[in-house]
């Protein structure tokens, strides 16, 4: 589904990704771990199409097509979803509007009619119940005045509505209490299917107790230093990242 080869990206003159290769197949869950500042969010943003970052080398293929030539909205409509580490507050644009516009953009791309207002509300409320969200959040500005945990749940709500083929969740588990974490994990697990792939960017083993990854990668200084199965995450938790760095340098 996603083939990243020797990807290099920079912002201004500063290189951030220094040759990342990653292959994610349908049905898989990958976890990307790594110290702060190692380039995890940058990788996620480059996949989503943020133009703050210039790709200076390598390639990204998604469903067999060159992803890098698509606009961010085209990527989204074709099934890529990025759960932001820092979801943006957009006062005055309400949540329901965004969900509906996003859903309809995707439906249009697939040659479907717009969802009708009743169906939409039913669907949104259903998903909100699943995530333990109050339906009144629909009428609030996007993330406006939401707590950290509410913002993360809202990201998962959008994901649940859009049912992406490839979801990249950037530290969606950070700052969540245990109930919120369970709700988010539940949201992610209900998306799991043989046709979909999920990439979790995380610092903690905690989320991985609920959403079991097939592959775990360690990203450091813009490179993947090591990949392994879920036991790698446990090892990291125990020994820290320095251990991986030392092993890589040796």
């Amino acid at each position: 589904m996603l083939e990243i080869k020797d990807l290099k990206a920079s912002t201004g003159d500063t290189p951030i990704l220094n040759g990342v290769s990653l292959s994610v197949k349908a049905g898989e869950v990958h976890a990307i771990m790594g110290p702060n500042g190692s380039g995890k969010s940058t990788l996620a943003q480059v996949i989503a199409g943020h133009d703050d970052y210039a790709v200076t080398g390598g390639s990204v293929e998604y469903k067999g097509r060159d992803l890098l030539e698509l606009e961010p909205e085209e990527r989204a409509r074709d099934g890529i979803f990025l759960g932001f580490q820092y979801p943006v507050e957009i006062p005055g644009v309400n949540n329901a509007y965004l969900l509906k516009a996003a859903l309809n953009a995707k439906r249009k791309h697939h040659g479907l009619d717009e969802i009708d207002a009743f169906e939409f509300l039913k669907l949104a409320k259903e998903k909100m119940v699943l995530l333990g969200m109050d339906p009144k959040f629909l009428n609030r500005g996007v993330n406006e005045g939401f707590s950290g945990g509410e913002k993360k749940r809202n990201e998962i709500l959008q994901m649940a509505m859009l049912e992406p083929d490839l979801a990249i969740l950037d530290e969606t588990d950070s700052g969540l209490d245990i109930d919120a974490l369970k709700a988010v994990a539940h949201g992610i697990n209900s998306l799991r299917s043989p046709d979909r792939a999920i990439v979790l960017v995380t610092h903690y083993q905690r989320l991985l107790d609920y959403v079991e990854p097939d592959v775990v990668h360690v990203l450091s200084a813009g490179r993947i230093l090591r990949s392994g199965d879920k036991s790698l995450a446990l090892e990291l938790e125990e020994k820290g990242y320095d251990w991986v760095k030392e092993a890589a340098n040796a």
Partner: protein
Amino acid sequence: MSVLALPDKALRTAVRELPENALAANRQAALARFLERGFPTTRLEDWKYTDLTSIADISQRWLESGAPTATAASVSGRVEEIRAVVGIDWIVIGNGAIVDGTHIAGSEGLSIATFSELKHAPGYEHPLADLNAALLPDGLHIHVHAHSHHDRPLGLLFVDGADSQPGVTQTRVFIELDEGSQAQFVEYHASIGEADHYANSVVELSLAKGASADYVRIQARDGGHTQTHRTAISLQASSTIRYSGFDLGGRLVRNDLDIDIGGKEATVLVGGLYIAGDGQHIDNHVRIDHRVGPARSEQEFRGILGGRCRCVWNGKAIVQPGADGTDAEQSNHNLLLSERAEIDAKPELEIYADEVKCSHGTTVGQIDDAALFYLRSRGLDKQDAMRALTRAFGASIVSHSPIAAVADHLTEIVERRLTALTEDSDA
């Protein structure tokens, strides 16, 4: 040339050829004052950013072509369009002539008459008000009787047409709200036609003790047309005005809103939204004079600017000696969609009393790139995302507009402008 004058002789002739009525003597007096001063020029502080040269030029060409009056028929299409979408009672003033609607005068608690019938001589000295008084065929006088309450908004449709020759029109309305009365007004400025046009209007509102008015002004002139518009509102004790102004069209537009607070416990709430695209110049000058306290005034103007355009906002609050207990707030926020858009924003406070609460804030910003990317990452195309963000920026003004009957139409024409603007901004 140091003054922006109009040719004496042609102007005198134009005034002389107006319909003979009770306003004749007043026209001559106003004409004399205008001839002495001419149009305001950019050397005046208040007119620094708004150059009326092109308006003087249109007026001159209009005079040279014999000061023709377009017929009311030429605007009837536009009138029907507006009637079809806003279902309120309209008084239509087409090309400066009162065309239709005075029958509403039959309503209980409301009298409508012309200035000439009432021998009401328009006062208010200002060069543009003088030009208006000099060339005014007739004015409209609306009288809301004491303690009468009107739930149905009354519409004032100023519609001008200039098809083949340059046009100039003068419109004037005086609204008198007697003690304890309540009424709602929609003032709509529209124009059509390919030729140049200059509309100069004056609206005066006088609110007696305890009166209350909701007022929405919508300016949706055709792209090539120009206007200068002056609104003077005076408030007595415990009276309230809720006023929203929307500038969505026109090439060169200058609005002056002068509010005089002459009674305790008066409340003034003003909202304004201007949306300007390529080639437009929109200037809003607001002056609120707190002569008496306690009283409260609040104004919030927002601007959305795209293409090569210029907008001006000048909000002045004056708190006169002894007007203690004044609470005056003013704010102006602008969203620039293009690097060629220019805004001159200036809040001014002149405070001569002690116990006052005054504040002002002005901001100029661009589309939030993070928000734009966030929306696009959800599948919205760039233009839809831009439109959502610009719509959100103006939403507080649109949603606080005090008259429900025009809310849908307003939303629609704002949306149309935003669509045009966000299309342009890609170029």
